[in-house]
C-alpha cells in the first residue's frame, strides 16, 4: 500500500449527506473498468446524458482534485471497494467528511486513502473555506501533524487513532500485520477443534 504522509492539492466540495456507493460508482458490468470514468458516472450527468455543469466534479477548476469534502454518512450502501478505487484513479487520496459509513471507511484505510472526520463546527468552517477557495488554491493535509491547512484561515486539527495513522503513514501491509499472529491463529483452530469441533469442519453430510 502506498504510504500517506502529506497531500497538497485541490479540494472539491460535494456537500451532501448520505452519498451512497451506488452514486460513487454505479454497478459495473466490466470486470476491469476504467475506474476514473466510473466516478459518479450517473450522478454527474443530467437526465439527457449530458454532463451536469452544476455537479462540482464537472467544473473546470475541479477536474484534478486531490481532496473530496463531503457531508454525513459518506459511502453508505454497498460494500463495493470500487467506490474507493475510483477515487484513487481520479487522484483523490483524502476525503474529509462529517462522518463515514463503516465499510466505506474501512475500504479507504485498506487502500491508503485518508478518511478524515471533522466535528460539525470544524466541518462547517472547512467547507466554507473550500467553497471560498473554489479550486483556485490548494489545501495541504499533513497526516503526521494531523492538520489540514490552506487558504482562508489557520490549520484545522483532526483526530485519527494512532493505529490508523501509523498504518497509513507507513503504508503497512494488513495481511503482513496479521500474519505476525499466525501461531495464535493455529492455536485458536486447535482449541476450537476440541471445544466446538463443528465450527472447524464444514462437510456435506450427503457425501
Amino acid at each position, binding site marked *: 500500500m502506498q504510504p500517506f504522509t502529506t497531500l497538497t492539492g485541490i479540494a472539491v466540495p460535494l456537500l*451532501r*449527506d*448520505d452519498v*451512497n456507493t*451506488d*452514486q460513487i460508482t*454505479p*454497478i459495473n*458490468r*466490466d*470486470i476491469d473498468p476504467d475506474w476514473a470514468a466510473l466516478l459518479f458516472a*450517473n*450522478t454527474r450527468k443530467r*437526465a439527457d446524458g449530458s454532463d451536469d455543469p452544476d455537479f462540482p466534479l464537472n467544473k473546470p477548476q475541479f477536474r484534478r482534485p486531490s481532496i473530496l469534502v463531503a457531508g*454525513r*454518512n459518506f459511502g*453508505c*450502501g*454497498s*460494500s*463495493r*471497494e470500487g467506490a*474507493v478505487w475510483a477515487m484513487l484513479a481520479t487522484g483523490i487520496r483524502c476525503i474529509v467528511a462529517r*462522518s463515514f*459509513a*463503516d*465499510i466505506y471507511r*474501512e*475500504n479507504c484505510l*485498506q*487502500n491508503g486513502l485518508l478518511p478524515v472526520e471533522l466535528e460539525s463546527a470544524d466541518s462547517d468552517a472547512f467547507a466554507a473555506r473550500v467553497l471560498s477557495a473554489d479550486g483556485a488554491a490548494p489545501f495541504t493535509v499533513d497526516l503526521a501533524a494531523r492538520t489540514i491547512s490552506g487558504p482562508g484561515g489557520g490549520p484545522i486539527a483532526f483526530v485519527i*487513532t494512532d*493505529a*490508523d495513522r*501509523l*498504518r497509513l503513514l507507513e503504508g503497512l501491509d*494488513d*495481511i503482513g*500485520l*496479521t*500474519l*505476525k*499472529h*499466525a501461531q*495464535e*491463529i493455529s492455536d*485458536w*483452530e486447535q482449541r*476450537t477443534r476440541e471445544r*466446538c*469441533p*463443528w*465450527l*472447524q*469442519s*464444514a*462437510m*456435506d*453430510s*450427503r457425501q
Partner: protein
Amino acid sequence: MAQTLFDKIWDAHRVARRADGRDLIYIDRHVLHELHAPHAFRKLDAARRRVRRPDLTFSMQDHTVPTTPGRSDATNAQSTPFLTAMREGSRKNGIRLFDICDPEQGICHVVAPELGMVLPGATHAVPDSHACTVGGLGALAFGCGTTELEHILATQVIAMKRLKRMRIRLDGALAPHVTAKDVALRVIAEIGIAGGRGHAVEYAGAAVKAMSIESRLTLCNLSIEMGARSGLVAPDDTTFTWIAGRPWAPQGAAWDAALAHWRTLASDEEAEFDREVALDCSALEPQITWGTDPSQVIGVSGRVPELASIEAGQEGAFRRALDYMGLRPGMLVAGLPVERVFIGSCTNSRLPDLEAAAAVVRGRHVAERVVAMVVPGSSTVKRQAEAVGLDQVFRAAGFFWGESGCSMCAGGNGDRGEAGERCVSTTNRNFEGRQGKGVRTHLASPATAAAAAIAGRIVDVRQMLAGES
C-alpha cells in the same frame, strides 16, 4: 460480567489483539461471490499467498448470473468474465463452487443458510454488505470489502475494532399481511440510515420471537440499511428446528454437542447495550418507501411528507428525492401507477416470501403494461416452489419466472428497468439508478409488491384481498 450475545460470540472468536489495537476475529464460514472475489483471487496470486482454509470457504455465482430460463455462460456475454474468473479462482484454490448450473446455486445469503452452512454462534463473512442477513440464525456476520476479503482468504481472520451494541426490541404481534419487511422498514425510518453506524444490532422482543427464520433473515438483512455492519437474533427452538437435518449442518453426536452449546447463546439479563430502541409493532400497517433512501418510509395508507416536517438542512435532499421519484409533498402513495414489479433478492426471495406473493396473485392477472418478475433466491427455492405449483400461479398471472440470482436488486446481470418506470420491489435499496437509470423504486414486502402488480398501482394488499373475499 454480564455479556450481550454479540460480546459472547466476539470474545469466543477473538484470536489476538493486533499491535494497531484491532481484534483479529476468526471467521468460521466465508462465502464469496463472483462480482468481487475475482479481484481478490488475483491479488492473492500476485502476492503468492494461499487460501488458508478452503474447506471453510464457499463460492457462489449470483450477482451477474442471467435469470433467463435455460441460461448458460453464453446467455449474457458481459457476465462471462466474472463467471469464468470465479470458476478459475475457486478451482485453483480448492474452494467448493456453486456454479451457474449447480442445482443448489443461488444468492449467497440465501444458499448459505438453507444448506446449513450458517450456524448459531458462528462468525460469517461475505464481501457484500448484506452479509448481515444470516444473523437471523444467531450468527455474527460481517460484510466486507475486497481487500478484507483477500485478508480473510489468506488468514481466516478479519481485523476489526470492536463494535458497539444496540438492542432493538420489537414488541406486539404483527397484523395479518404485515411482515418482517414492514417491521424492518419502519425501524429504519425511526433510526435513520446512519443510526446503526458502528453497531452490531440484536433484535429481540415478542414480535421477533414469533417470527419464522425466513422472516428473521429478512429483518437482519436490512440492518445495513440503517448503517449497522451486523444484526442478529438470539437462536431458539425455532432456529434449531430449522437447521436440523440441513446438509452442511452438524449431524449425530456433533449435532447434540453443538445444540447444547447453542442453547447457551443469549444476552445475559443484566447485559448492557450502548443503545436501546423499542418499537411496538401491533398497530403497524404494510410499509413502503416513497423516496430514494430506505429510511424514507410511510405506511401504505400514508402521504409523502410535507416540506415543513423535514429536518433543517435536509430540504435539498428532500426535494431531490421527490423530483427523482416524480412525487409532490403530501401526496398519497396508494394509487400511484406502477410499470414494474420485482419479487426477489436476498431480502425477500425465500419460499415463504414467494408463497405470500402467490397467495395474492392466485386467480388474478398482472395489470396491463406492468412488467412483473419473480426471481427465486436459490435454485433450491425455485425447485421447492415449482413442486407446489407456485411457478404456475405466477406464470398464469403473467409474471416472468426466472432462474435464481441477484437480478434486479442491483442489476449486475443486466436485469434493469427503464427510465421513468415506477417499480415496486422487494429488494433493499431504493437509491437513484439502483434498478436502472431513472427507475423509481418503492421498497415493500412480497405481498405488497404482488398486489401492486395485479392492481397496476400501489395498493394496500389487505384492501385488495378483503374486497374479493
